[in-house]
């Protein structure tokens, strides 16, 4: 298996960074991690072994760890990381399962981080984490975006906005 193809998404993501200020933030790390995760899932589905790609996934997951600050999110992420590190590279079924679980847990972790930053009135941080979430199909995403923006000038509204955003993630 050619080992160049899996790094393409990573290289493109990094090239994108280079054009935007050469410092990686949570959006960049998430983007790189999900690109690696999707590539690993495809390899598992195609029963194609690519140790270099799997190693890239572990590395990007490790980089992403540093972004997580909410206690419960950190706890969840440690479990995900443990499963990822324990998966044997040649066992495609386990790899596929671990990748699918990681994808799902990532969304949960992003939601927890969103709420954590929003509750601390860190609007920018909350916006960054919210941008990573794939909201449920019929959620009213527009209301949440506008509410978060309005929190900058109405900090007394933190609690109702927390409820709105939490509901948005679960709807």
């Amino acid at each position, binding site marked *: 298996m050619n080992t160049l193809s899996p790094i393409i998404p990573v290289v493109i993501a990094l090239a994108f960074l*280079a054009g935007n200020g050469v410092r990686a933030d949570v959006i960049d790390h998430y983007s790189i991690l999900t690109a690696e995760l999707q590539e690993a899932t495809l390899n598992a589905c195609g029963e194609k072994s690519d140790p270099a790609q799997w190693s890239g996934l572990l590395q990007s997951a490790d980089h992403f760890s540093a972004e997580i600050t909410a206690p419960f999110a950190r706890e969840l992420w440690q479990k995900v990381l443990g499963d990822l590190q324990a998966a044997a590279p040649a066992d495609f079924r386990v790899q596929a399962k671990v990748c699918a679980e990681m994808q799902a847990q990532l969304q949960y972790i992003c939601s927890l981080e969103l709420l954590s930053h929003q509750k601390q009135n860190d609007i920018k941080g909350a916006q960054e984490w919210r941008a990573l979430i794939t909201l449920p199909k019929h959620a009213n995403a527009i209301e949440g975006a506008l509410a978060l923006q309005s929190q900058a000038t109405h900090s007394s509204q933190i609690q109702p906005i927390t409820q709105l955003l939490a509901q948005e993630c679960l709807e």
Partner: protein
Amino acid sequence: MKTSLVPSLNRICGVFAVVLLFCSGFSYGAEKAPTASNIQGVKDYLLGVEAKMDAATDDFVKQSSEYQKVIESYKGDYAAALKGDREHILKLVKAMRDDYMAADSFGYERVEGIVAGVDKLADFDVYLDSGVPKDKETKDTPAAATTFTLKNGKVVAGEGCTFTYLIEPTLWGKNKKHIVSVTVGGDGSQAAKDSLPEADFIAAAGVDMDKKMDELVAASKAWEPSQEDCFNAVVKMTPTLSGYFDDWKASRYDKDRSGLFSAVSRVSDMQGIMQSVSLTYHAVDASVAAKDAALSKTIKQGFADIMSFVERVGIREKKGPLTVAEIEELHDQAQGKADKLVPQVEQAAALVGVKSAN
């Protein structure tokens, strides 16, 4: 949390160069992506591509007319024509294929996100590229109004749109209704191995395509683009990614191949279409970034991710047949990327005060 990338940039640039070299075998991977920094840029890009398409359809009319004359000179006996004038005929069919690809594969597909996405231009998409035959019409898939008359007075109507259902499958030997079975041989790179296009049909289809192209150019020149047009086009066209993916799957991997999309892989089309959608978003991004930098960045990365994803589909395809599980996973990933981007673009539209019509 911020991580410095500076120490690794030199290495990355080196790797990036290697990757580009590796990808250079794909015609759809080698070109620099076009950009538009404002809504006028979208129109400029559209008119630039259409000028090349128009030149290609003009030439198609010349080549198909010449082909028709050669076949007529043999009184419609294709086998005799092939025997007596083989090189000339193959050259003309090849020229028509090249013109077709310039007009559609490397022309229209690169502006489809705009033409099909902008309400004032969308009818051209149905006529030229997406309209199905009358008997396949559904609520979500309109029939093409494509109609023209052959030299013998016979009317062609209800057979689907110009590019996908009429010209391409005829030139690549898949449209049984409008090809003439004849042993051509060769490697199939100039013409199908066992058929030639029906001359009167391909000539009339070419004239009609050229006429429609002129109308599209005129409508595009008259179009006054707005932010609303751009947001609506992005919201309308981004979800089509998974549909194009289904087309690719059917054309390449289904047991009974669809017979459509023979000229180039649908992967190339996906890249062209999504490139034009991405360009349309970038034209309105500055106003979004001013309101929510994170949302702006994620949407732009979402489009970069889609382009990278399409590229990877091409690379995987080139390595050999994909497993069913891989194809299904690719489909799910395509769907997931579109499902995530569309609500984000709708949020972006709301933040800048544009009401999405979709």
